[in-house]
């Protein structure tokens, strides 16, 4: 029976080819191997996001009148709906945290070196998509907090010269955050972003398979042959342990610390004081806040936003900037990663205080 099914599938899908590829694929084994697990952890949380997202779509209504009520209904009437929403919300946070760790580990170990420039660049775009997922998803409960935070968030691009106001209007679907913004954000969150994410994820994973796992610069510079293990089954078994523990942590956190739902957003109400974005935007938010109102004759906000865009461009083209990893320039770029981590931590703590 089993052989029959196997040969039926083999004839149609050529499963033995995939199995052969997986056993031939090797994973370098060294003291930095732990960072390889972050990639699959991101995939795990993304899969959980998709599954719970599908469940939430069945009950969520993206209209001005019904958005907040439908989320309330999910939390109070739908069987275990509050857990589904909590898992969706927490897995988003976990996913973004792991995307940050994944990119920073690649930055520090210089795994973006030639010929992996495009893998890095697709990864940076995936980070931006993940952040935009978080930003659009945050408005969907349509409560007072998410409404005000979105108002602040969508107002930031306005500081960009020439195209700023256009970007803000494009995001909001008009001059202000209204029901149109909600519909727009819902469409972006459940339709546009997933399409882009799946395409880029496909390219990213293909590039990793094509070029193999990168050996960190530190290990490579030793000049010795790095030990390897087969991807299947040796590495996959190790990954499964990580997945199990992460799923356990995710469900425990989601059950014991579920997100609440505030009162419905009032378009006419004044914005409450002390509005802050989600944790992964806090360091950027605080950076904007510390800039003075005017720097010479230019608005401080414009300078801050332009500096952030410039830093983002440098980050995107990092593999091309770090073309001499062994020299002073390369060491400076690695040191910049540590400086960024310390800066992000300080700014986040400052923003929380």
């Amino acid at each position, binding site marked *: 029976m089993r052989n029959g099914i196997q040969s039926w599938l083999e004839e149609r899908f050529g499963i033995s080819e995939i199995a052969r590829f997986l056993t031939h694929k090797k994973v370098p084994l060294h003291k930095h191997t732990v960072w390889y697990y972050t990639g699959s952890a991101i995939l795990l949380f993304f899969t959980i996001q998709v599954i719970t997202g599908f469940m939430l779509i069945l009950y969520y209504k993206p209209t001005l009148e019904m958005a907040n009520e439908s989320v309330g209904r999910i939390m109070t009437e739908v069987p275990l709906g509050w857990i589904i929403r909590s898992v969706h919300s927490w897995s988003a946070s976990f996913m973004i945290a792991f995307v940050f760790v994944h990119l*920073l580990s690649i930055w520090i170990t210089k795994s973006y070196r030639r010929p992996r420039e495009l893998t890095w660049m697709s990864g940076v775009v995936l980070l931006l998509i993940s952040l935009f997922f978080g930003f659009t998803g945050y408005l969907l409960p349509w409560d007072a907090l998410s409404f005000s935070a979105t108002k602040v968030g969508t107002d930031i691009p306005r500081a960009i010269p020439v195209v700023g106001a256009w970007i803000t209007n494009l995001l909001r679907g008009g001059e202000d955050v209204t029901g149109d913004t909600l519909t727009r954000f819902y469409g972006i969150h459940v339709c546009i972003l997933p399409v882009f994410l799946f395409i880029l994820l496909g390219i990213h994973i293909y590039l990793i398979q094509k070029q193999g796992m990168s050996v960190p610069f530190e290990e490579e510079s030793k000049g010795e042959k790095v030990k390897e293990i087969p991807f299947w089954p040796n590495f996959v078994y190790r990954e499964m342990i990580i997945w199990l523990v992460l799923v356990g942590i995710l469900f425990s956190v989601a059950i014991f610390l579920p997100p*609440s739902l505030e009162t419905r957003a009032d378009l006419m109400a004044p914005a409450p004081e002390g509005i802050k*974005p989600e944790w992964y935007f806090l360091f950027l938010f605080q950076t904007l806040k510390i800039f003075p109102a005017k720097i010479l004759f230019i608005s401080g906000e414009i300078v801050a936003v332009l500096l952030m865009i410039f830093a983002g461009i440098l980050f995107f083209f990092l593999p091309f900037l770090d073309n001499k990893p062994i020299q002073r320039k390369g060491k400076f770029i690695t040191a910049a990663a540590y400086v960024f981590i310390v800066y992000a931590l300080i700014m986040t703590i400052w923003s929380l205080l």
Partner: protein
Amino acid sequence: MRVARSVLALFVLFFFLAASFCPLCSSIQQVVDEKGTGSIQIEEESERIVGSPQNIKEKTGIFVFVGWMWLSVIVLVSFLRLKIKEADRLFRLKFFLEKKE
């Protein structure tokens, strides 16, 4: 590089904690506290929906589920550790290589 690992571990741990204590979760309360109008705070909090089990049966079920989940994780992790040892042993014996050829 051990330092790098520790820093990154602290980074992720911090953000998990930051997310749980993020003032966004309680900013209505914070705003009201700043203004010092306690009466509004009570009014706002009564409108707030907090996810929780709907009855004692569901609550018990959730606790049982969490216990069962962690027990399953422990059992499966122990099982996988044995599988890793076995797979590594077979790899050292070049079992996969011979099979491949």
